[in-house]
């Protein structure tokens, strides 16, 4: 089954003042895959993810989402598109004045006409799907641990059942066990709910265990997109440098053992 591309970027330019972050960048995301994006820190991965998720208008270039050219889209159509995209921010970006339950309920309140009881059930369903204990629902974001914040953020992102999930460094700052559990969760949700996932990550274990393809961002463009096994053999100097060293070997071994 060769899937259809649901997000197509072509000729993307992004710059902040004189700092050019992306230059003539192209990338496609296929339905139903988990695409990893890697590259050095400050290389523009977050900016790329924002561009894909309609959070940033590129300075030049075309972003097609579900076949729509986002440059010539009506506000109403753009709003409908946004509802099909879910974005999980690097630091969670939970609303600090609301509890976890209210955070997840917020998009439902705003965009749906679900009956009250069903709405509450749906919220609790999302909280459970994200792997949180039900007791966590009543807590404020500041009372949560790092791993729980990520899960609560994931629950809010899942609230409207988006088709595409953007995750910005979802496992950064988590201990290996929690991070591994989060990876498993993402893979599981993707297969259960038929999601497409685009994730920025530095976590080698995640790359090996979770992704279908990995895009490497270097020199302001995507220099290679391939399954991780293949990507590690790429001879591009930046990629070779990224994957050199023992930690990669260890991650590969762990991934094999896990399988």
């Amino acid at each position: 089954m060769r899937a259809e591309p649901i997000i197509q970027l072509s000729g993307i330019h992004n710059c902040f003042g004189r700092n050019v972050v992306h230059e003539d960048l192209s990338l496609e995301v296929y339905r139903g895959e988990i695409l990893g994006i890697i590259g050095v820190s400050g290389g523009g991965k977050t900016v790329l993810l924002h561009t894909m998720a309609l959070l940033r208008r590129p300075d030049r270039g075309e972003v097609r989402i579900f076949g729509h050219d986002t440059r010539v889209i009506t506000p109403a159509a753009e709003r409908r598109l946004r509802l099909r995209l879910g974005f999980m921010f690097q630091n969670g970006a939970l609303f600090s004045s609301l509890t976890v339950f209210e955070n997840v309920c917020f998009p439902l309140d705003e965009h749906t006409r679900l009956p009250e009881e069903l709405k509450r059930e749906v919220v609790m369903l999302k909280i459970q799907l994200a792997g949180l204990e039900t007791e966590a629902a009543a807590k404020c974001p500041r009372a949560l641990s790092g791993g729980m914040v990520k899960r609560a953020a994931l629950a809010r992102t899942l609230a409207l059942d988006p088709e595409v999930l953007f995750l910005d460094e979802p496992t950064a700052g988590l201990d290996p066990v929690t991070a591994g559990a989060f990876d498993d969760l993402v893979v599981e949700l993707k297969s259960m709910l038929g999601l497409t996932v685009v994730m920025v990550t530095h976590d080698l274990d995640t790359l090996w265990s979770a992704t279908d393809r990995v895009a490497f961002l270097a020199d302001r463009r995507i220099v290679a997109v391939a399954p991780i096994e293949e990507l590690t053999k790429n001879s591009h100097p930046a990629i070779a440098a990224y994957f050199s060293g023992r930690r990669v070997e260890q991650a590969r071994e762990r991934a094999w053992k896990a399988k």
Partner: protein
Amino acid sequence: MFDSSATIPARLKVDDVAGRVLLSGDWTVLCLSEDVLTAGLQMLAGRRRVVIDGLGIAAMDTSGARAVLDLSARLEQAGIERIDFKGFSETQRRLLLLVREMPAVIPPPPEQQSLLEHLGMVTLAILKDVLAYLAFIGSLTFQALYWLLDPRRIRLRVILAEIQIAGVNALPIVGLLSFLMGVVIAYQGGDPLDQYGANIFIVDLVGLTMLREIAPLVTAIIMAGRTGSAYTAQIGAMRITEEVEALRSLAIHPLEILALPKLVAMIVVMPLLIVFADLAGLVGGIVVSDLLFGVSLESYLERLPQTFLMPSSFWIGLVKAPVFALIITSIGCHQGFQVRGGAASVGYATTRSVVQSIFLVIVVDALFSIVFNTLDL
């Protein structure tokens, strides 16, 4: 075909002859609504067997699955013994199974406080706030003593920067408002005095009220709204981003760098601003009395030093300055350090800071009046 953004609302039709519930449309979170989900179910009451037919469902997500399961639960409650699911696709079945695994827990509603309990909590909160404020004043005093013992630690640069922000930058607004107050007082008081031909006493009126009361009060209120609130917001935001803890970890007492320089700056700036406000107010009075009530500039200036309480009025206004400075700075910084949690709490703290410092300024001003009165000043 990959644009599936056109949606069909979710529908539910009850076929009470065949004992079927026919579902159709998009059973997705955006397409579900209340009226659909309960329509006509009572017609099925009393049956033993009901089929839920999902053949017409175009799309289903987890919320839709939850709604379908709720539907079956409701039928079960109505006494129907057997409920069959027909016509659901393989993926829809998997989704239903997945959602069924997650029990439909609903969190208990937040505990309601009784009025008495609420009253108690509020009282305790106020007492705690007062205690914390006293403790804050205490540690601020301690830090100030350290500075006196070791003057090399005084941060002159920071103090000067604070003076620039709190004082120099406030000159236009303080000047303008005091000028207007002078105009208003002369204008309002001038008329009755004019009727008695006592125009020259406008000078006494403006001089007394401005120097004694209005200039210090207006300045303090502006500083509370302009500077005190800024202190709260700055320190509060730093608390949220753990910058205050960062200072502590670098072995710098947060008060020493965040509060003390502000306090010193305010104590320096406040009397100067009040003198400036005095002048602006007097100028406002001069303009009005010259233009409208025929009191020339010369006679105004001649009369001014002779108003019967003249020198003491000026000093009484100035004595209040350091006290007001202390109130505004300490409440502003204290509320900043009280911030806990998120962005909203910075907003609350800033509001509290402005309200409390204006309140306290006016109360203290009243106390001053009583004291000066008994001292016959």
